[in-house]
């Protein structure tokens, strides 16, 4: 049991490999590690022991090309992601547009603009589409065949509704005189609408 030089015990060699792999910015080969370790060390043996020690742990020693490196255990990848929940207020334009779609669906963009009294920006529609609160419905069988918008399942989900027909308060609003009993704007459309043209250019882009 005489050792030619003071070769560190295997436990120490294991510690060395552990520290080197940890601190290195790139995978290290056995040769590279051995070069740094005191003479007589056996990086391969130390590494084998260390690999075993890390088996099933949160980090593992994996082979990367010619070298070795610590890597997060694959099942823990989710920890390396951070969900950032953000609560944002919807713009007034978006809320109004959404409300109009909900109450008047299927509804065309020109109709939304008519009801709101102002132009509806592409961004507003896009945002609602992206939120998956509205989607495209059937095209209207009028000149220009404008697309219509309807609300989605996600919308109903978010607002806790069974269907758009159940929109609570619709009757109440009407009873309170907040909704007039004019026919749906969609019916007026064909005479009034400068829109046929407007719509076709609206969704062309």
């Amino acid at each position, binding site marked *: 049991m005489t050792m030619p030089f003071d070769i560190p015990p295997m436990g120490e060699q294991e510690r060395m490999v552990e*520290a080197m792999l*940890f*601190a*290195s*910015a*790139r995978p290290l080969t056995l040769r590279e590690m051995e070069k740094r370790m005191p003479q007589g060390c056996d990086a391969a043996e130390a590494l084998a022991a260390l690999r075993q020690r890390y088996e099933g742990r949160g980090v593992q020693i994996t082979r990367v090309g010619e070298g070795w*490196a*610590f890597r*997060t255990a694959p099942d823990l990848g989710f920890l*390396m*992601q*951070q*969900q*950032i*929940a*953000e*609560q*944002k*207020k*919807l*713009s*007034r*334009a*978006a*809320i*109004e547009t*959404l*409300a*109009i779609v*909900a*109450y008047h669906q299927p509804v065309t963009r020109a109709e939304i603009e008519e*009801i*709101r*009294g*102002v*132009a509806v*920006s*592409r*961004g*507003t529609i896009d*945002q609602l589409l992206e*939120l998956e609160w509205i989607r495209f419905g059937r095209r209207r069988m009028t000149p220009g065949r404008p697309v219509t918008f309807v609300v989605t399942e996600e919308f109903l989900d*978010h*607002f*806790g*509704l069974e269907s758009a027909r159940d*929109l*609570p*308060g619709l009757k109440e*609003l009407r009873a309170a005189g*907040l*909704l*007039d009993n004019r026919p749906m704007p969609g019916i007026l459309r064909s005479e009034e609408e400068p829109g046929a043209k407007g719509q076709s250019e609206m969704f062309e*882009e």
Partner: protein
Amino acid sequence: MGDETDPTADPTVSDRLAAEALIIDVDGYEGPLDLLLSLSRTQKVDLRKISVLELAEQYLAFVTQAKMLRIELAADYLVMAAWLAFLKSRLLLPPDPEAEGPSAEELAAHLAFQLERLQAMREAATRLMARDQLGRDFFARGETEGIARIRETSYDVSLLDLMQAYARIRTRDEFRPYAFDRKNLFTMEQALERMRGVVGFAGEWTDLSTYLPDGWGTEPKRRRSATAATFAASLELAKQGQIEIRQQDTFAPIAIRARSLPRGH
């Protein structure tokens, strides 16, 4: 430095050598306090038991020698010399009961305290630097893994908001007396609505012109109306503290960005 000495001063050779040694050192001193601390070491006693009188004499002797050798001493060395000369005389004279202010002993004690404190800080600094240091003796993880940030935006809208919005539109409809040509007119209200919706995404400086609504950027009349309304709206938003506006130069493009407001209450 020898060539700076004045041969007419006629100090003995050994005096000159001693003085020069002192002067060579002077470059290394960081000021009167540093020099005093160094001089105090020759007393070889605990700094708390230092003789300030003796120290004052040493310092004054140093200054005299430096003068003899026509060494330019910085003003603060001379200020300290004057103060120490004053302190020395006060220490030597019997205390004057009439005199106001601190006694000579108090002043001397304070000087001793300053020296001891400086010495203590030097030792602390040495001990600090002797510690194991990150990146020299111990190391952090070399190959870090970044955290992927996944933004999940949820919008805070209730059914009531929705209904109120709808009621607002419908009631407004009834009072709308006259429908003007809104084809070519972009109102400030519209611009404000539009910008409120999008400005939150503008963390970076963004040219105001990029906020013009689609289809309003080319036809001059529409562009003018939209530009004016958007500018007016941005002023309003700035007033409300929601955005910041900047213009680098006269007639330069105007840029805006969202002001990050502290969250919560």
